[in-house]
């Protein structure tokens, strides 16, 4: 999955899409995921990074990441 190239991410979790003017807020975990995506990490690398960084299990990461990615697609924050 690729994030929109020009998507602006702030360390506060504020996200701005300059093409549409839409803005969003994400929590620290969401911001981590967006930053990893922005740095070109694969979905597997992101899963591993989350499992290393947070006390959670593989299934929870899998499910939450799936939901988060779907939401990014629905909000048109990704590109092919």
């Amino acid at each position: 999955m690729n994030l929109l190239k020009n998507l602006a991410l702030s360390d506060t979790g504020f996200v701005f899409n300059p093409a549409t003017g839409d803005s969003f807020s994400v929590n620290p975990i969401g911001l981590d995921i967006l930053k990893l995506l922005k740095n070109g990490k694969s979905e597997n690398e992101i899963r591993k990074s989350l499992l290393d960084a947070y006390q959670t299990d593989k299934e929870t990461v899998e499910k939450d990441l799936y939901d988060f990615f779907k939401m990014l697609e629905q909000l048109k924050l990704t590109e092919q």
Partner: protein
Amino acid sequence: MTKRNITVGVTGLNNIDSPGPGIPVIRGLKESKHFNCRIIGLSYDAMEPGIYMHEVVDKTYQIPLPSAGQQSLLTRLEYIHQQEKLDVIIPNFDAELYNFIKLQDTLKSMGISTFLPTLEQFEERHKSALPAFGEKYGIKVPKSRMINSMAEIHSLAYEFGYPLVVKGKFYDASVAYSPDQAMAYFNKISGKWGLPIIIQQYTPGTEVNLTGLGDGKGKLTGAVPMRKTYITDKGKAWAGVTLEDRELMKIAEKMVAGNKWRGGFELEMIRTDRNEYYLIEINPRFPAWVHLATGSGQNHPEALVRMALGEDINPYKRYEVGKMFVRYSWDQIVDLKEFENISTFGEL
């Protein structure tokens, strides 16, 4: 840099809930790096808030309504020019532009510069002529038709389907979802602005707008795209944010290269989910949100005045994306004496 002292006449002081562009234009001029501007407000109604905003408007004169004709306007401007020695006038209402365009050579001979579209440019972008305009300059336009009677709504509704957009010839537009609504809007809008009414096919998508300035030779001197982020019940922007929208910039460049637009303008477009752009309106003057352009790095009012005074200027290349404007309302306390002066003597 030494700033040049100039006097600029500006209309559109109606800084109300459906604001005119006058005050935002003046704010750009007041922030100019090239000019110290004395601002002469030109008003139509004693209740235009700008008349009483003495921190931005130095003096105001009432001028006759556009319906009074060119001669009446010229006589009044001659008087104002005698008092104030105007260097430039910036008209900001669609309805007054015809008279100012017709008078621009006379005004020039008096020493007053303007920077207006030609009559042909002004006429061909009328709402009623928009489909032909789109075809001529390769810009997609929703189907639309001009009508003079309510009876014509039914046949157009059959062709366009509901919802459809009912528009006035100068201002106002409402989306009608049924024949009853379409007829009600026809009556309401024609009662206010007269006939014809324009019926336009509804195009679903996001409205994006662009404020621009053409140099009259085919170059876009400046352009800033914006999306409204808060809209009033009159459909006016109460807040907005600048966008990075290369496609919209290309459309503006294409239009200005094609018709050699001279002066300020606003493109109102719909961007569909498939990233197609449909032109819904071209306003032949700056929009009321033009101060967002100034705030994001492109002072279009200043650039217009420089071109009106014969300067060649380099087009703006950049603006800040993600710059917002948020309007507010403000109760001014006005002495009755001031209202008396503008109402009785036509000057304040």
